[in-house]
């Protein structure tokens, strides 16, 4: 199995001289199974260059998994060229929105409505199927399997684990470590803490021992207090998560849009230094990076 990062930025694209190394496109990861089946994790602006490359060898058959429908995970989708070309087979998976109860198909159609985009989803020429993501689901992609789990974000978000030929990869989508909403002296504090621990353990069990762990690490620990509740983790908390799940390779992504390449290099150096005695390879994901799993 191989994976390639086409977009590593969070929140908003961040092009410019300060983001050349790690990239300015928003989240998109291409995963190729050993059998050549194609899975695309999220459709941030990184899916546009991926689509251009795929267009060179059509017809395309792929499954796109939308972890959640925040802009930075979907706004490249209308620019994914294979959607426009007859003969391509594309399945778009995503959750139903629990607030509006709209399906991923309806959400995509709204994204491509007249006021947002010149082409409607019904005018796309490829054969598009839609799938509703549920927790605990196993979706077969050729002989690979993709399994889902609900993460902690400000909108319903699914993490995905892809398994093939004894190897596995997990992508969190956006995820913030759980925190207690009650002060320590509140009567509900202990009950809530217990629920948090159970849910966290469920996620750790789910990702335990994967060969590649791709996590949202938008903030530094110093930045986090001001960003608490915004739905993202920190570099250090992601490394802790990788250690807890006994993972050997962790890839940190969803970079804060203001973070420069220079800052990222310094953070990586510091992380590696702090964890030099751990049996863990730490990477900060960059656009174009390919992982062999």
């Amino acid at each position, binding site marked *: 199995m191989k994976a390639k990062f086409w977009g590593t930025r969070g929140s908003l694209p961040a092009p410019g001289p300060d983001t050349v190394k790690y990239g300015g496109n928003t989240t998109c990861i291409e995963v190729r199974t050993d059998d050549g089946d194609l899975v695309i994790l999220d459709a941030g602006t990184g899916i546009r260059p991926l689509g251009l490359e795929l267009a060179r060898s059509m017809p395309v058959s792929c499954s796109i998994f939308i972890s959640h429908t925040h802009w930075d995970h979907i706004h490249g989708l209308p620019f994914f060229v294979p959607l426009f070309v007859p003969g391509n087979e594309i399945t778009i998976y995503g959750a139903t929105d*629990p607030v509006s109860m709209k399906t991923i198909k309806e959400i995509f159609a709204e994204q491509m409505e007249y006021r947002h985009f010149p082409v409607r989803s019904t005018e796309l020429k490829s054969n598009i199927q839609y799938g509703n993501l*549920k927790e605990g689901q196993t979706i077969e992609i050729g002989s690979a399997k993709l399994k889902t789990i*609900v993460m902690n974000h400000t909108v*319903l978000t699914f993490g995905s684990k892809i398994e093939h030929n004894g190897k596995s990869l997990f992508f969190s989508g956006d995820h913030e470590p759980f925190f207690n909403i009650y002060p320590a002296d509140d009567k509900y504090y202990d009950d809530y803490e217990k629920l948090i621990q159970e849910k966290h353990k469920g996620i750790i069990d789910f990702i335990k021992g994967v060969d590649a762990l791709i996590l949202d690490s938008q903030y530094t620990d110093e930045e986090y207090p001001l960003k608490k*509740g915004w739905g993202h983790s920190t570099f250090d908390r992601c490394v802790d998560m990788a250690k807890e799940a006994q993972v050997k390779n962790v890839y940190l992504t969803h970079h804060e849009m203001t973070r420069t390449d220079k800052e990222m290099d310094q953070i990586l150096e510091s992380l590696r230094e702090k964890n030099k005695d751990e049996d863990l390879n730490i990477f900060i994901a960059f656009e174009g990076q390919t992982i062999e799993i």
Partner: protein
Amino acid sequence: MFGRYFSPRTDPCPGNSGSGNKKIFQEFSLIKRRIPFNKFYIRFLRTCLNTVIFVPGNIMSAPRENFLQLLEKIPAFPESVHRILVLTSDIDCPSKDLVEVVRHDPIFTLKILKVVNSPLFGLVQKITSIDQACVYVGVNTIKNIALGLASIGALPGKNKAGFSMNDFWLHSLGVGTVAWKLGEALHVPPSEVGDYFAAGLLHDVGKVVFALHMSEEFKQALDNSAKNGHALYEAEREIIGTTHADMGAMLAKKWSLPENLTACIAGHHDSDVAERPMIQDCVFAANQVGKRLKYGFAGNLKEEDLPQSLLDRFSMGLDEIIESMPDLDEEMENAKVFIQL
């Protein structure tokens, strides 16, 4: 027999829920004007309800679905709606404040549990309390679901049944609080004790349905219960053909709520059971405590005897149970302040 009353001209099988359900009840009203209120009418109404609402899978399943869709539109309590609207207008609103409002309102609780337990999301774990819902799908999602519910309006202060929603609410909160404390006393794990509160809070929710949508019949049941000293659910069964416990359980089942909550709602008046889960015992006992201590009022004055299995579980009777919780009044005062009654 049914066809005699619902001719093709008046058959309540509309395609659309809102107007269709109005038709159902308008039809009842029309028929009532045509037929004098007597035993025949009562028998007729009971037959209609049993057939229209409670018999699954028959040719009348469409009206049953429509009735349930009507219930989707039941709004929450005005104080909660107001608070949600105020809290959500502040970007820095503390999550805990918002969750407190939702947790204390039976309608918000019921509907949020309905959403998060929907098979559409397939959550691995059934969500039984608001805190659990927050952990599982995130506080911001709960906030936005609540905001959506608040936007449909608020429960009217008055209804034709003369059923005080504020007293009902306080009773529900009382039973939830007592059930929660009983759970704690029985060493229920912290992660489960929230279910006890939710179960107590929701146990009488079927009465809201009756008060809003079968107000005349419910009023008669309330009057009969008060006059004869019978339990309200007996009067409901006699006049409406079913009980608020059945109605609430039907909602809970339809909306895929966890089985333990559904069972608590369905069985909170069942005293002739040999043995049942702890949560059901706690809700049953809490209901009697609430009535004894007059925590609000939900139309039913009659206390029910604690069954032997329940006495065995607590190793004490109702009086001792109440004595074992000396801070109950304080808890209720907190709840009253919270809901501004």
